[in-house]
């Protein structure tokens, strides 16, 4: 809720990932409820028939087929040419989206730091399992997309991802709809998409989410709220200033008002959850004071993102 007075910004990967966390993350791999076509050959079974060691099916030979995949044993028995099809193993595309608006940079602990850490942890899991990891920061920029990294693959890219995450500086306002459009347009392949934000968009989250879904992504909506947003520590006559659009609201904090606020917050989260459920998105609300390992190992594993 309240702007973090002296936000701690991660300087490097050590601030984002501790060795204990890495130790906990190493056994994990990403998973998706959906099976996507990969772009590169990876460690994930693909829908495509390909050249893995796992047999998938047979099909009659047709002219032009690679003769190397003819099942000669069947030809010997049946005197017909059958092609031996194998399951293709492909990589998984992981798209991580972080909200870099000013509103993210508040709360104690900071929502933004929490999101940075979550992205780094998930990115690490993705990279070490040879998945294609891309990340984008929504923020105040033309097109509402602050910066992005694409197609990172392999353990060697971890530092690259870390330095990108550390380079992010929250601030300003953006249009979620616009940002979502850009992300959808520049997508590469299909895969997992995790959107970290508080989803407090004045224009509404629906338009943006609608643009993200339906392009082959398995979208996870992770709403990060600070403890202060859930339990506002406010009293007195206040002029609340929206740190994004500098909108103000004059309130006199009273018990009924707080009750009303909490009810509104619950309803908002409920609305977001319902919206996501209707569109096969997975929604989840986390507090920014949740430890990252709890988030990854408990909450996300339960929802099948990591296994």
């Amino acid at each position, binding site marked *: 809720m309240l702007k973090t007075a002296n936000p701690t910004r991660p300087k490097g990967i050590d601030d984002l990932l501790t060795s204990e966390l890495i130790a906990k993350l190493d056994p994990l791999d990403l998973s998706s409820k959906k099976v996507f076509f990969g772009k590169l050959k990876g460690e994930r079974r693909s829908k495509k028939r390909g050249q893995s060691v796992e047999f998938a099916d047979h099909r009659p030979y047709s002219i032009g087929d690679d003769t190397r995949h003819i099942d000669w044993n069947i030809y010997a028995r049946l005197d017909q040419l059958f092609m031996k099809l194998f399951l293709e193993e492909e990589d998984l595309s992981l798209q991580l989206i972080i909200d870099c608006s000013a509103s993210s940079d*508040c709360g104690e602990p900071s929502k933004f730091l929490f999101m940075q850490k979550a992205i780094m942890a998930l990115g690490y899991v993705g990279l070490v399992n040879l998945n294609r990891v891309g990340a984008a920061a929504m923020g105040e920029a033309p097109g509402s997309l602050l910066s992005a990294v694409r197609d990172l693959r392999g353990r060697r890219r971890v530092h690259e991802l870390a330095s990108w995450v550390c380079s992010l500086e929250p601030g300003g306002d953006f249009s979620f709809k616009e940002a979502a459009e850009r992300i959808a347009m520049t997508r590469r392949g299909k895969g997992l998409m995790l959107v970290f934000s*508080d989803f407090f968009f004045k224009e509404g989250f629906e338009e943006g989410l609608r643009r993200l879904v339906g392009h082959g992504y398995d979208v996870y909506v992770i709403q990060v709220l600070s403890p202060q947003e859930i339990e506002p520590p*406010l009293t007195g*006559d206040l002029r609340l*200033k*929206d740190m994004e659009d500098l909108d103000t609201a004059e309130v006199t904090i009273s018990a*009924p008002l707080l009750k*009303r*606020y909490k009810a509104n917050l619950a309803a*908002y989260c409920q609305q977001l959850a319902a919206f996501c459920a209707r569109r096969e998105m997975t929604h989840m609300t986390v507090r920014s004071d949740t430890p990252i390992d709890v988030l990854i190992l408990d909450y996300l594993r339960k929802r099948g993102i990591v296994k």
Partner: protein
Amino acid sequence: MTWLTWPYAAIAASIAIPALLILYFLKLRRRDVEVSTTLLWKKAIQDLQANAPFQKLRRNILLILQLLVLGGLLAALGQPQIKGQTVTGARHVILLDRSASMSAMDEEERGEKVSRLDAAKKQAIALVESLREGGLFDKDKADQAMVIAFDSQAEIRQQLTSDKDALKRAIEAVTPTETPTAIEEAIRLAKAQQQKRKVEGVEVEGLTSDVPFTMHIYSDGCIPDAGKAAPGPEDKVEFHRVGTSEAANVAIVGMRAERSFDNPNRLSVYVSMENNQTLARSVDVELIVDGQGAGIKTTTLPAASTDGLTLSAPEAARAAAQENATRAAAGVAAPDEAPRNLVRPTPGVGGAVFSLERGAGAIVQVRLRDPGSGTPLTGDVLALDDSGWLVVPPAKRLAIAVVSPSKNLFLLTALQGLPLSRLSELSPPQFQQKALDGTLGEYDVFILDGWLPPGAKKPLPVAPAAPTGTPGAETPAAAAPADDVKPEDLLPPGRYLIIGDVPLRLGQTPSGIKDLGFGEVSSIVDWRRDHPLLRSVNLDGLDIAKSRKVEIESGSPAAVLASSDTGPIILDASTAEIRSVIIPFEVAESDWPFNVSFVVFMASATGYLADDAGTGATGRLIQPGSVLSDRIPSGAADISVKPPVGDAQKLQAAADGRVVFGPLTRSGVYNVSWKGASGPTDFQDDEGRATRFYAANLFDTRESDVAASERVELASKVLIAESEGSAVADRRLWPWLLLAALAIVMLEWFVYNRKVHV
């Protein structure tokens, strides 16, 4: 509800309320807090507003509470007061009747009988309590009141003031007197406090430039002179009646003692009594002579009657209509009871006569007792008129000296027939010698037959007319030429029957009688048959051969008792020191000595002249309320007067021996005592101290008829008694408003805490 200082409240409100509102707007400058989003807050506010119809009110409940507090404080500043009945008019005159009838014990308070005056005082104090108070800031706006106590005289006990304590003290200090009632002076006294309104520089009687008075008369309505009292046309008069109209009273209304003409030792005491009850009543009349019971008589007093006064039917209807109109005008509801008889019943009159042998002087007291029991009358509300006193001088025959240069046989013959103690003939030098010796007191009356002291015959020197052109240049002392008359040549103080001569001076004062010398034959034309001197004298057919022609100047103390065709022939001339009857003609030169009326005249003239000396059977009767004024022999020292109640008081005699004490407030026996020569009727003790007694009695029919009257008819308006309990003490509301403001402040604190501590 009255606001004492509403302008202050209005001014304060015009400043304070906008100031509070401005403060409130300033207070809306809230603390800035940066939040991630105002989305949910705005929604919450909107929800709250949508859900709570009184949200606006609730939002500003603190402002409203503060406005309430401020309103309470401002209203308190206005000092509102509530009273059950508004007392209009800002100037009140409290006229408190303290006359004898106000001592009647027919008011009740907590089961005990209290006097009417006490009840009236209580009502008056309630009125004072109900007066509007000045605010804290402007005392001028307060109601003012004045306290006047009246009996036969009026006295301002407290000038106009708004000091309620002073007013209450003044009311409390009023004590009852035993005098008749007269309200006219009281109302004139009140009116004198008003400034007359001037119209074109001329003061207009009855119109005041001040606020008109509201006069509150606290009385029992027994006000005989009410018809003379005329309050101003702008003044409001309210009559607060005390006492009941059923009050029963038996009273002594008159007493007289007489000595028989032929036997002065035989003393008759006449007592007349009245009964205002509608039932006949028997009373014992007790006679006490010098403190010893001397007789008792039972008398039945008839009931009071309305027989002679019953109004005819149309008159009664008219009177009732008039009364109803007055009631309506006065805003008093007509009583439910059947129309009362508007005329007061005439009291039943009775009397008693005591005869006793007593030559010496005595103090006679008569008191009324219950028959047979000797206890004071039961059911009689007014005790003070149940006894009466008389001072009966000793039975003394007159001592008369005839001063004449020659023997007057007619005169001496006539006088010798009278029961006198002493009849002396004095020559003028003897008289003058006695005057020088100061032994004139041996005689009660001197008859100066054809002789006057030389000084009495000389006119007072007249100041020469001031030369014109120098008005006021000379002082009067310088203008009056020296008086060459020696004091011993003047007529000394005393009582004189002057025959055949006319004094131009009575002592030092001019007699105002002009002697025009001897005139012609004349005969009597007219005489005052009602005068005590001539009551039993028939002067018809009196012829005078040689008479002095006499004229009376204006301002003269002389009064004509009889006149002939040429002018006055019998005059009564009295000054403070000298009492004289003047017969200007020579008796011997008329046929009067041959007429029986001459002897009768001589008897009544000497009796009349001596009467003032106290030799009459009933002298020195004073009614409370009047002033004891008498002359005591010159040279008296250490004069004191002892009232019936209380200690003796010192008096100073004037140069001519006159002492004045009073006005008397109590009935009873007063005595004036002094060291020095005593008069013929004074008691003299061994130490040379002379005492003279005076009896003060109420003896007032109106005052003793104690039935309280419900209407008082003043000259200008008729007053109907106000219903009781009209004055309700005002209650100051501002302390309550302050309390309310405090309560609201506490409520505000509570509300604020409820709001903030979630």
